[in-house]
């Protein structure tokens, strides 16, 4: 960890978002992760994305489980409530929190240990319910806090720091999410902020469960020769197939694209994602095709990145449940109780 605490002063020249807030006002507590940890880059990207979207800090709810990645929710947007729950069970906390108040932005940060082992069931069911949240996995293939055991995302043949070779096949969260019916699936790399920030923005604006699997190397336990989750390996093997650019509502699209090159996807609030296919054969709106493509490339040892699948039509949790428009934690008691008259009626059935 870095021991230099940043002073909380705001220089007048710092750029401000539409709310008049600077990036500094979206920061959190000082990170206690190892210097150079990929997770800190993800934290920075989240801070940037939330600032750029001009979301009020208190409208952000940060949720996590247990592990290095789960600690990071304390390191961004200190003006929003955080909930560091139990190992792998953040999705259920998120489900309840979202049930209670549908009008906040929910950011879950988890790791491969947290999501793909004990948390795999809850992860799957959060996808199944299509709860409206951004779910980021900081994926490094290793358990850091317990000093370097393989996680469920470790590839066959990858080597641990002390030389042990992994022999079990990995669970790939992107492939799993696509097969489970996730409505927004992306993969990125902690070393590629250019790619990550718009993906986070798009994920926050997506109505439903948005997964971003971020390859985020562990500098202490999994950044050596022979590891398939090291900076060097990932940098070498990641290939962006669909570039996503995020355009807020009312903003003009200024970049010039050749005809047919760009697929604009309009979000519920009028913002747009411009999807630029870098491999023309890829289609991020066809689940089956996307699945086959990602599987094939994975088999060749390549991480396909970008916004890999998007479905804007499937209804999210509250639409499925036909919940009222007012967040239910704000309904007055009068709207909830049938009163003494109602009880007298109900009692008639039990005479």
């Amino acid at each position: 960890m870095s021991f230099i605490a940043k002073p909380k002063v705001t220089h007048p020249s710092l750029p401000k978002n539409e709310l008049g807030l600077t990036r500094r006002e979206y920061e959190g507590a000082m990170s206690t992760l190892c210097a150079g940890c990929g997770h800190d880059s993800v934290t920075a990207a989240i801070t940037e994305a939330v600032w750029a979207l001009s979301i009020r800090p208190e409208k952000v709810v940060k949720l996590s489980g247990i592990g290095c990645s789960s600690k990071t929710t304390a390191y961004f947007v200190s003006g929003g409530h955080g909930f560091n729950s139990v190992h792998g069970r953040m999705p259920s906390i998120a489900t309840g929190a979202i049930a209670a108040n549908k009008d906040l932005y929910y950011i879950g940060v988890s790791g491969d240990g947290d999501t793909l082992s004990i948390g795999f069931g809850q992860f799957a069911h959060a996808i199944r319910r299509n709860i409206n949240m951004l779910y980021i996995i900081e994926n490094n293939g290793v358990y850091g806090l317990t000093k370097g055991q393989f996680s469920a995302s470790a590839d066959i043949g990858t080597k641990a720091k002390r030389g042990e070779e992994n022999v079990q096949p990995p669970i790939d969260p992107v492939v799993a999410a696509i097969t489970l019916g996730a409505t927004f699936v992306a993969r990125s790399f902690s070393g590629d902020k250019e790619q990550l920030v718009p993906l986070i923005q798009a994920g926050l604006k997506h109505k439903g469960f948005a997964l971003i699997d971020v390859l985020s190397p562990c500098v202490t336990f999994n950044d050596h020769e022979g590891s398939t989750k090291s900076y060097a390996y990932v940098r070498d093997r990641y290939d962006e197939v669909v570039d996503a650019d995020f355009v807020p509502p009312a903003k003009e699209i200024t970049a010039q694209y050749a005809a047919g090159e760009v697929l604009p996807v309009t979000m519920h609030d009028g913002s747009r994602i411009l999807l630029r296919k870098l491999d023309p054969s890829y289609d991020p709106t066809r689940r089956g095709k996307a699945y086959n493509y990602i599987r094939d490339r994975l088999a060749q040892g390549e991480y396909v990145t970008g916004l890999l699948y998007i479905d804007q039509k499937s209804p999210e949790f509250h639409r499925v449940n036909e919940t009222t428009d007012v967040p239910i934690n704000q309904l007055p008691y009068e709207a909830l109780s049938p009163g003494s008259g109602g009880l007298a009626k109900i009692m008639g059935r039990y005479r």
Partner: protein
Amino acid sequence: MLQSAESQDRLNDFVIKLANVNGTGSASANSLLMKSIFRMGIPVMGKNYFPSNIQGLPTWYEIRVTRDGYVARSGRVDIMVAMNAETYAKDLKEVSPGGYLIYDSTWPRPALLKREDITILGIPLARMCNETFQGGRARILLKNIMYAGALAALLDIELDVMRALLGESYGKKQALLDSNIKALEIGYAYAKEHFSCPLPLRVARMDKTSNHIMIDGNTAAALGCLYAGATVGVWYPITPSPSLMDAFKSFCQKWRVDPETGKRNYVIVQAEDELAAIGAVLGASWNGARAFTPTSGPGISLMNEFIGLAYYAEIPAVIFDVQRVGPSTGMPTRTQQCDILLAAYASHGDTRHVLLFPSNPEECFYLSVQAFDLAERLQTPVFVMTDLDIGMNDWMCPTLKWDDNYRPDRGKVLDKEQIEQLERFYRFFDKDGDGIPYRTLPGVHPKGAYFTRGSGHNQYGGYTEDSTEYQIVVDRLKRKFETAKQLVPSAVFESRNSHDIGIVSIGSCDGAVREALDLLERRGVHADYMRVRAFPFGQEVEEFLAQHSLIFVVEQNRDAQFRSLLTLETAVDKAKLRSILHYSGLPMASTVIVDGILAEVGAPGKLKAVSR
């Protein structure tokens, strides 16, 4: 036939037990019988002993007609309706001397299965059904209604009351109603023709059930959730708790849906397991909704980790534990009070939880409402400890009432203006000295934001590994538990002016204890009674324990868990406590208590403990 003083004595005071095969539709006939007696103004108790099975295994239903209003089992069987060939021999044995057994005489019984001390009445139910009705399923179902008709004649149950009830059940299905009425009348006519009706054991109209209802505890608890303003229910199906969420759902569909938009003022989530169910309850409560989960023992075992988090991170939650027989899967359709210690100290580390012990459906309603108020006031999980007997059996209760002045106690939640005025918000700081800190909800104000964690934290809400900072918080949690003593519902007492013998009990033992008090008094043994309604124990519990020299602790588990909790959490002298334990899985009968106490105190006059 003799119309002796003895038979007169049994008017509105006897037990019918019906032995059936699960899945043959007997439940509706049996509840028809019970409800008819209830509608005749006669107090009645009904207990269902059913298997963990959908079809084929034996099931029993016990109806106690109880003019004195005793709500527990009596321990006798005066009339057995033996409809299950498989259990016939056992059922025959169970009839009390002088009683009756009714069986389907379509098939003769082996001559070996006889008893001289009871009267056996054969009714050719299957034959009459086959002669009258078409279709295998209809014949099986209507056989039950037919014996209900025969019992109406034998016991003098008013046929019009039964017809009216059938009309309410099958109102719009005329053909079904017609065949049910027909079956009822055939059974009635057969009994009238072949037996001397009514039997000495019979019913006669009373006026003791007006302003009463028949309701099960799960339904009453669901009503409590509705009236408490609970908006989020999350659950995983586990016997015997699902009917609680089923009832909540149906109440919500009726009372919580906007008639114009069709939108719902509630969210019900059937979770993937109990771990997720409690997780979602915590997420919702943390975010300011009243949330609950109904479950049973195995579910509590699974929820332990989250319960510890809720205790330490101070998140409200209401958990219904409809207890069933353990350990492990145990006997899911049988009743016990076996999760007391599990719930009281659920999760690793130093934890203690608030428990409420309703004794019947009426209390399930009122204590459920209170559970939400306590959970939010104390910012901690609250367990409503019911059991299968309370939860799934229909109990006669006073009609539930509601005070329209009630408003939920949301506890110490700071609103936007209050947060605005703070210099800084400290989540776990004991400003008021009662051990209860202030909390804020997400989305309200950036100054109110804090980080909720199950890891070590200081009183300001920050992460800590500092010994002193850690201890300040856990010591305050202990003080908060002291505060809880003053807020939880106090014990209820029934004094019989004994300074020697006390009976202490909880929950569904209540009916059996109250009847036992009367039975003991007739034997010259006077005992005072305290029914504890909550943990932590209040001062009144300490006082009762101190005042009595011999105390019987009545509960439904093998290991005297409630007694253990009393010895751990009060100053009572362990040597004064005697256990009366019932853990067969069937609801408790008063005889267990009477026998247990008489065995200890002996005949009246022998001990000084025995009253004057």
